[in-house]
């Protein structure tokens, strides 16, 4: 069935037939979970349980549980928020932007990357909600609802409110995009199943029958959703960066922030996709679908976005000096040489230097090296947000109020909670949902190397 080209590497290796695709992906859903899956799931659920102690303590006592002080009023909470949102950018980028660019290699990875996006955005959204202190009243602060203060509305001039709209739109549109893609695959599982599984996947598949007319509409919907999601994905991190860029804090109010944040988001998102996919392909034996070719292409995206981020770091430093604004330059000078120099140089090493190793083909196509570097990039991107947020705040205009930030156990615990949540959701997804988009992979199986077949 599959045609191999002498010119191009096939997107799916191993000479798979259409039925093989169905079988290889569906058997994960149909079989009993492996011991490895159980151990991984229990670990994630354990971290979730442990972290929830910190979460409950924070909700019970208030955000005084965190290490914030009157100088550093934003620290790990917003760092974690921006970090998770950034990670949540890769999925929609892969499925929407690469769809518009007709990059067929996206088909093997888009499902898992979108799932990762959705779970990462859930984790991200946790932080703004918790840091309101009394989140049960949050609806009045975040949504334009009539309330008992008369009709005092939310402030549409505030980037924090734009964020509410951006994140919730991004989450719901990504969810819909992901689910529409899942419907045909749920139907495949339904048609292979009997009994209870048939009922469940039958409901999940929304009565999909694969009619040509429905596929025509499906294609139309996918294309328009991709067209809508592309500016959306760019707008979300742009608006996240406005949280900082529209303020008057030195080190925050720079015009470079939107593109720099978007590049950083794609950078960290692809790193997280690689971390997860390298494990998933191994555990679920999907090496023929997520090939070294896929890993190499993702690594190239990491070099490009990592270099953009590197240029942005240097540019903002240069502009801070060139502007001649003393507090602005001091903020940057203090980042590199002040008490948080270690955080700054961790960021520089992990984000600017380490991805350059991917210029070497041997490293770019090595699974071990890619896995290690993907984690390094994620550490680096966490430090980037920490550096931007904490070092800009901890030495403000008034030297008498200069302070340091020390995280408490509750800070660490709430961060752990989101890790537990993310991986618990991801493992559930990996077991019960088809991790590879079967229908789309089938559609590229033949055409990806059509030229030679004729």
């Amino acid at each position: 069935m599959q045609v191999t080209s002498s010119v191009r590497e096939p997107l799916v290796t191993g000479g798979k037939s259409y039925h093989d695709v169905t079988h290889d992906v569906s058997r994960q859903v149909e079989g009993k979970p492996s011991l490895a899956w159980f151990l991984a799931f229990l670990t994630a659920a354990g971290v979730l349980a442990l972290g929830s102690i910190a979460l409950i303590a924070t909700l019970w006592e208030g955000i005084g549980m965190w290490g914030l002080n009157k100088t550093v009023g934003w620290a790990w909470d917003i760092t974690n928020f921006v970090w998770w949102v950034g990670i949540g950018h890769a999925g929609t980028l892969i499925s929407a932007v690469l769809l518009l660019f007709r990059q067929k290699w996206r088909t093997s990875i888009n499902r898992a990357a979108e799932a990762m996006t959705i779970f990462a955005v859930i984790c991200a959204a946790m932080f703004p909600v918790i840091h309101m202190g009394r989140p049960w009243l949050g609806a009045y602060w975040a949504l334009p609802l009539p309330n008992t203060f008369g009709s005092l509305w939310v402030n549409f001039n505030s980037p924090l409110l734009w964020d509410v709209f951006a994140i919730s739109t991004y989450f719901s549109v990504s969810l819909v995009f992901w689910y529409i893609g899942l419907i045909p695959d749920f139907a495949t599982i339904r048609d292979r199943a009997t009994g209870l599984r048939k009922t469940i996947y039958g409901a999940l598949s929304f009565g999909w029958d694969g009619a040509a007319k429905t596929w025509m509409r499906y294609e139309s919907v996918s294309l328009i959703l991709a067209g809508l999601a592309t500016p959306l994905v760019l707008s979300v991190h742009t608006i996240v960066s406005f949280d900082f860029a529209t303020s008057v804090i030195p080190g925050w109010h720079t015009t470079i922030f939107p593109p720099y944040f978007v590049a950083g988001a794609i950078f960290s998102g692809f790193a997280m996709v690689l971390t997860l996919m390298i494990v998933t392909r191994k555990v679920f034996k999907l090496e023929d679908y997520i090939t070294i070719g896929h890993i190499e292409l993702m690594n190239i995206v990491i070099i490009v976005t990592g270099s953009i981020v590197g240029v942005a770091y240097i540019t903002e430093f240069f502009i801070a000096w060139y502007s001649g604004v003393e507090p602005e330059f001091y903020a940057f000078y203090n980042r590199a040489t002040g008490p948080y120099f270690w955080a700054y140089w961790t960021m520089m090493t992990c984000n600017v230097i380490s991805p350059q190793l991917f210029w070497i083909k041997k490293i770019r196509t090595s699974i071990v090296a890619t896995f290690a570097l993907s984690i390094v990039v994620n550490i680096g991107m966490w430090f980037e947000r920490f550096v931007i947020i904490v070092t800009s705040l901890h030495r403000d205009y008034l030297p008498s109020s200069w302070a340091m930030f020390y995280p408490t156990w509750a800070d660490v615990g709430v961060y752990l909670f989101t890790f537990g949540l993310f991986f618990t959701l991801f493992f559930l997804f990996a077991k019960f949902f088809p991790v590879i988009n079967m229908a789309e992979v089938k559609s590229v199986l033949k055409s990806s190397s059509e030229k030679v077949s004729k």
Partner: protein
Amino acid sequence: MERDTNFVLGVFDDEDVLLHAVEEVRSSGVKIHEVYSPYPVHGLEHVLGYKRSRLPIAAFLFGMLGTSLALTMQFYMMRFDWPMIIGGKDYAAFPDFIPVTFEMTVLLAAFGMVGVFMISSNLKPWAQPRIFDVRSTDDKHIMAIDIANNSAMDLAKIEEILKSSGATEVNKKSFE
């Protein structure tokens, strides 16, 4: 069972064979009920003679609705209902309203279009689809021909057209 809906099914393995087969079957005067595929086959809608989907128009209209709702909401709340000076800006600080307007445009366009898609394609959790052949979500393309719609044609003739156009199997299927 006699007066129920009866179908002749042509089973195809290959998408290119299928595309030619659809053309051949249609040009020989047989009306095709529908073709069921495991994945989207490009060009299939053209050879079947389907009109272009109007879903993009729905998306545009819902998007416009989102834009106008967002702008109306923000101008009403900020300029008319409870005007306040914030950061020395105008009550109706139009540039500040753009992000929310953009997000609501995207939100309504996406949800409106998907909603129309769901309704027009009858996709809902409790829907009971007519499955002609379970392999149509695995690895086969199924061309369904409604016998009642082709009463002028001889059944054996239809089967022969299907076979000669490349169908690997020709089956029959009845629904109550």
